[in-house]
């Protein structure tokens, strides 16, 4: 795989190192001369010393043949423009992925045409929510679904949750969302629509990213 990494900060450098070790081809675009030199000393000739938010340097880095362009600088506006220019300059075939520093910019980037984003804040939040004892319930965004504005959510029904004792059909779920399955005692419950939710049920939901809060309110309280 050939990957262009825009931004040679800590994340960009370690990402490049890991990808090279995994046998992939990499080009890092870094505007700071000293930083670019340092990366070259560590990883070899895999650095282009240039601003990544100018289209001609993306082309010079060979983004037309790249399988992915990753924008991982510490500035959200820069990552947005890098991704939009990559879409414009480098053709539609490769994946374009942005790091967002402010988690709410995930929604902003999607609205502006950049579907694939990674928010380190949100990844850490998910880990923490997974690790914490939930007291017999939990609400866990599992993963975004590639190429859509949807995500996969798991909600464990807690005692006292507003959805306990209600048939799935009667729940007031936000538009565009769907309860895909219910796991009870390690087994899938057949006939999702007619099932009545019980404490301890693990409900798998497909929902628009923007509606996550509403799903939480409906199922989990």
């Amino acid at each position, binding site marked *: 795989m050939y990957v262009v990494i825009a931004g040679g900060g800590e994340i960009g450098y370690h990402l490049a190192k890991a990808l090279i070790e995994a046998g992939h081809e990499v080009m890092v675009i870094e505007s700071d001369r000293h930083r670019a030199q340092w990366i070259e000393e560590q990883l070899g000739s895999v650095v282009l010393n240039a601003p990544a938010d100018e*289209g*001609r340097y993306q082309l010079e880095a060979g983004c037309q043949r790249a399988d992915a362009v990753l924008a991982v600088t510490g500035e959200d*506006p820069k990552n*947005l*423009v890098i991704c939009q220019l990559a879409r*414009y300059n480098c053709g539609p075939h490769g994946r374009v992925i942005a790091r967002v520093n402010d988690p709410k910019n995930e929604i902003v980037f999607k*609205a502006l045409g950049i579907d694939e984003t990674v928010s380190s804040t949100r990844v850490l939040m998910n880990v923490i929510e997974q690790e914490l004892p939930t007291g017999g319930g939990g609400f866990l965004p599992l993963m975004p679904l590639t190429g859509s504005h949807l995500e996969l959510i798991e909600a464990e029904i807690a005692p006292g949750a507003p959805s306990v004792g209600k048939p799935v059909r009667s729940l007031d779920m936000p538009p565009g969302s769907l309860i895909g399955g219910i796991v009870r005692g390690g087994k899938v419950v057949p006939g999702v629509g007619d099932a009545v939710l019980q404490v301890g049920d693990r409900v798998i939901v497909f929902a628009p990213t923007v509606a996550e809060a509403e799903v939480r309110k409906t199922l989990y309280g």
Partner: protein
Amino acid sequence: MNVLIVGSGRVGATLAGMLDGAGHAVTIVDVDRASFAHLPSTFKGTTHLGNGADLDVLRQVGVDKVDAFLALTDGDNRNLMAAQITKEIFGVKRVFAKVNDPIRAEIYRAKGITTFSRTTILAVLLQAMLLDDREVGEVLLQRTMKLERVMAGEESAAAAAPSGARR
């Protein structure tokens, strides 16, 4: 007209002062409180401390109700992000962004953002002045000099406002 300007540097603050003087409702946003010192002492509009490329800040200052939006910070990318949020998410129709890289300016113009590059504007003006091309240079130059005389306190603001006939 209700106008929102992001970036209170020399350009943003000067424009804010001109529009305010002409009777428009102006709100200006900047991350640095000290930058509001660029505004003329007569400025009666609203100043707001915050990041103009932030969804919540834009919502707070009522971006959905403005007639025109201008992103005039010194960062091309910040201006482009603020302008796109305003156009695509809040549906404002007249959106301008200062983008000094001419290539980026051209690409985003195709996306419906009115971009302008100080680089090309100045280069075209200077060329017109050098070659004595009156058509391009004269009007802009006269109006610019008039504005500068007003800012230096040598002339009243009324004299600098473009007359109806010229528009």
